[in-house]
């Protein structure tokens, strides 16, 4: 924990529940999660290198919290997200969502992918209906719920379009609508706005915050953008690479401002931004 002196820095373990969330029930409980893999066998008689992707990560996330997992590539933030989403095996520790241990993908926790993951042969409405189609929900009901969510993301006019007729930002809106179809407790988002241009990205951040606040879903949001983490989250989990560790948990000073007005113009924005940047630069050597 070297040289973290600013007002926003906290020790990762000491205040895991977060300030504003202390009174809310736990939604995601991460306990001592580790993952490692072995490098290529070099054939010179030595054991292959053991690479620690995640080293003993623990944290709890309250119901309805917006958490960013921030860090440079290779720091294990995406690995942690994928473990929580049941898409990757891990070595030690446990994750419970809503009191139930994660042992694979589950229907109360949905994923938004960086490259949208839409099925290109399906229309927008059929893409949005996909999760409920898997659950055997009748077509009319899927449509009704799908149109509701397309309205929420502002794309109700594009229901019969195909993904490749839409811009990247619109495609990700469709993917967000799809992820909300099952009314999930938790949304996992893997750099969802990373593939978009700066302006589209800001628009989507703004709109997604509104959606989040109206649905009350718990969000785990992977990003390598300090700005994005600050503007969106209640708390920011700062990761450092090799080995992948949860170094610090930071309360975003903009949590109160983000929904009304421009959080980037707030005084605390620049200050926190610099502090987070120096924290990340230090680990990037």
């Amino acid at each position, binding site marked *: 924990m070297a040289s973290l002196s600013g007002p926003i820095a906290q020790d990762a373990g000491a205040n895991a529940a977060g300030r504003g969330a202390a009174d809310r029930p736990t939604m995601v409980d991460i306990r001592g999660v580790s993952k490692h893999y072995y490098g290529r066998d070099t054939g010179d008689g030595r054991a292959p290198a053991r690479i620690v992707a995640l080293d003993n990560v623990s944290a709890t996330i309250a119901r309805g919290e917006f958490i960013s997992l921030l860090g440079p590539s290779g720091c294990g933030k995406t690995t942690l997200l994928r473990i929580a989403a*049941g898409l990757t095996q891990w070595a030690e520790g446990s994750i419970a969502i809503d009191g139930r241990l994660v042992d694979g993908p589950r229907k109360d926790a949905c994923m938004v992918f960086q490259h949208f993951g839409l099925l*290109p042969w399906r229309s927008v409405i059929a893409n949005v209906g996909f999760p409920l189609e898997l659950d055997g929900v009748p077509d009319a009901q899927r449509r009704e719920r799908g149109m509701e969510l397309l309205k929420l993301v502002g794309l109700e006019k594009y229901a019969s379009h195909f993904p490749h*007729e839409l811009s990247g930002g619109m495609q990700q809106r469709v993917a967000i609508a799809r992820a909300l179809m099952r009314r999930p407790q938790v949304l996992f988002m893997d750099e969802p706005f990373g593939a978009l241009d700066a302006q589209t990205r800001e628009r989507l951040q703004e709109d997604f915050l509104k959606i989040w606040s109206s649905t009350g879903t718990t969000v785990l949001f992977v990003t390598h953008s300090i700005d994005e983490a600050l503007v969106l989250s209640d708390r920011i989990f700062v990761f450092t690479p090799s080995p992948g560790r949860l170094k610090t948990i930071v309360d975003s000073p903009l949590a109160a401002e983000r929904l009304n007005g421009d959080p980037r113009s707030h005084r605390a924005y620049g200050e926190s931004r610099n502090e987070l940047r120096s924290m990340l630069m230090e680990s990037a050597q």
Partner: protein
Amino acid sequence: MNSPTLASRQAAAQPARPTPASVKWWTARPNLIRTISLAAFLLLWEYLGRKIDPLFLAPPSRIFDAAVELTASGELGAALVATLHPFLIGMAISIVGGIVLGIAMAQSRLVEYILDPFVNAFYAIPRIALVPLIMLWAGLDTTGKVVILVSNAIFPVIINTYSGIRDVRGSIIEVGTAYGATRSQIFFKIVLPSAVPFIMTGIRLTVGQAIIGVIVAEFFTAQTGLGGMIVYYANLFATAKLFVPIIVIGIMGVVLTELVQVIERRFSRWRQLEQNRG
């Protein structure tokens, strides 16, 4: 005969654009140019056909007369039916069998290892070399024609289905996994639909193979169908009548390929859109 011209395929692939003034007038009228080209060719043929010994070349006017005569006598119609009947049965078997085998090979390593020596060997041997053997086993009639056709036409379907399913991106399968799809849901809702454009291409490519298969079979039996008619009139040196079944086969190839291409485009629209975006 089994594929449209390069020019028309390019025209199909690109949406119409407004023509700037610098573009030559004829780029906007491809069909006019095609018609003129065909007409010039037919005129030249007519001219040469009248000069050359009718044993070698018949002019279009005499071929037309022969076509009218063969149609009126019912001979052409009967030959067409005799060819189309095994053709349709063989195409159905090639499509269904090819898709099933392609899927089985792509989904199961065991099936792949069991079948791929045969598929590769069969694909490498010119299938025409097997025709006498097949006829020995399956006879000269419909069964023989169907077996020869299938031995020719099933491979493009198998191979395209196989590569279509193998080509499915892992990231798109993961979408199914992340949403808790079962194995069969992943197959029927993600893997198979994403392979459909490949499968349709395989079917289009196989139309030509199927026509070759059935005509070759009829050459060997030399009794029925359009292929039989060609051999029969060639032996009689009746050149005008000989051209009639050849032209009918050509038309059949073009019509069937166009038909499959329309269906193919309908099913592959999303892929086209995907590629146009780069």
